[in-house]
């Protein structure tokens, strides 16, 4: 058992995969908690789809996937902000953005042949082939996000909790919104290479949502979310590594990690509701 957990550390590419997942877990802790507090999972979803055309263009033109994804994320944030100004309902805005960007991506990609392998990697991630320079890029996103959140943290929490008062205090809430949107977009872009467009939301939001259920304070929530993400990443990578090396069973690494995150979430929620119910019964009986 112990050996299974330690095995990934002996292989260079597994070490890099683990490092990438830990970095992304830190992002999930920092940005994911704000996403959960603001109920912005919808935004993560919109951005995740919005990076598709940018990535498709990057495929066709042979330029950097990261640049393409960043461009798509930027376009999504701009579209959301503009639709917000035009007083378009948020759900509707999201639906429009997702549909449009996916359609554009399909149109672009359908003009190419022989890209299936790359596209599969794109949809489901390729965390096992993360390169050193890509790790550095992810680390930069983590550091910049940490700096931005250090400056705006308490104001973002206020805005999430009591928007009318934040406005009354004189905060430029549109600017604060844009800051958070940009952080979400950057996180999605950073994570999309490793876990793929389909699983990005789960990777960034599930640990934060789990932490949100477990504790009542924002500060410890960041740490717990990052920790949960890290643990799930490690075990997920170890299990998928062990399965493929020792049992000849292919388990997609990124997907295994996400499944573990979901498992933890389900266990926590179930425990909470069982414990909560028992507590109610005890109170009622006393």
């Amino acid at each position, binding site marked *: 058992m112990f050996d299974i957990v330690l095995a990934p550390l002996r292989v260079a590419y597994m070490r890099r995969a683990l490092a990438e997942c830990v970095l992304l877990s830190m992002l999930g802790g920092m940005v994911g908690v704000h996403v959960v507090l603001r109920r912005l999972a919808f935004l993560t979803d919109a951005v995740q789809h919005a990076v598709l055309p940018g990535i498709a263009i990057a495929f066709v033109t042979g330029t950097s996937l990261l640049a393409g994804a960043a461009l798509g994320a930027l376009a999504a944030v701009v579209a959301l902000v503009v639709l917000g100004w035009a007083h378009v309902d948020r759900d509707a805005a999201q639906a429009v953005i997702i549909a449009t960007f996916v359609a554009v991506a399909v149109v672009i990609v359908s003009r190419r042949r022989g890209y299936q392998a790359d596209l599969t990697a794109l949809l489901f991630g390729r965390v096992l082939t993360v390169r050193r320079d890509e790790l550095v890029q992810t680390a930069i996103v983590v550091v910049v996000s940490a700096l931005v959140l250090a400056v705006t943290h308490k104001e973002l929490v206020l805005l999430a909790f*009591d928007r009318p008062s934040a*406005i*009354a205090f*004189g905060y430029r809430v549109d600017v604060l919104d844009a800051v958070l949107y940009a952080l979400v977009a950057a996180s999605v872009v950073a994570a999309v290479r490793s876990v793929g467009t389909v699983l990005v939301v789960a990777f960034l939001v599930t640990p934060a949502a789990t932490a949100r259920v477990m504790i009542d304070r924002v500060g410890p929530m960041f740490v717990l979310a990052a920790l949960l993400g890290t643990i799930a990443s490690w075990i997920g990578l170890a299990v998928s590594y062990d399965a493929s090396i020792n049992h000849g069973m292919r388990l997609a690494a990124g997907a295994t990690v996400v499944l573990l995150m979901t498992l933890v979430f389900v266990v926590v929620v179930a425990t909470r509701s069982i414990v909560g119910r028992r507590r109610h019964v005890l109170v009622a009986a006393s």
Partner: protein
Amino acid sequence: MNADAPPTTRPDTDAPALRLQLVHAAYDRTPVLEGVTGSLLPGRSLALIGPNGAGKSTLIKAILGLVPLTGGSIEVLGHRPEVARSDVAYVPQADILDSTFPVSVLDVVLMGRYRAIGWLRRPRLADRQRARAALDAVGLADLAARRFGLLSGGQRQRVLLARAIAQQARLLLLDEPFNGVDATSTELILSILSRLRADGVAVVMSTHDLSIAHLACDDACLLNRRQVAFGSLDSALTPELLRETYGPSAVQLVAGSSIVTTD
């Protein structure tokens, strides 16, 4: 002294905390406020009374400098609303806030200090002491560590009032402060407000409860998009003016006092 400098010293008490002159405001060219004129002295309390959609919350937003005026002017503590904002506290209805949100009671009160604390920095000891003192003033010091959402509606409203106290505001804007508030908290909120007024704080509250207006306010502004009346309670809350505000069928006289039956 520069006229635009934030008011940091106490003004002489004769200067009004709030001066409204022919205030007009519109949303997308539809007028929502017309010709609101009046003033409020420090230590006095004004009730904004009118049916839903009468422009009460628009007026509160305008006093905060959040709604562009299409005419007239607003002076808050002798300054433009945007400049005076740090001395103005807005108290929302407690029940619009997410009761599952992970903040403690003390966290909420500390939010009143955020503008003074500034970006990047965390609350210092002095901020915490001020927040605790404010919680003490609303009788909730022993619940400081409790999650905000676990409190009753009335207690939550008192926490928001404590936040305004911690902000050391000189003008309080309250949005329906007695909605969904139990009798005990109503009593407490009334006494907190009168203590604040004794300290020279001016209070503006929107309400559609005339008995609350009688208990908590000196002056009243009757609104139905246009201003129907602005003045002392006795001069403003007459059956005729209330009928003009709410419509003829909505106001009845019961035992010599006016009752608004629909809203």
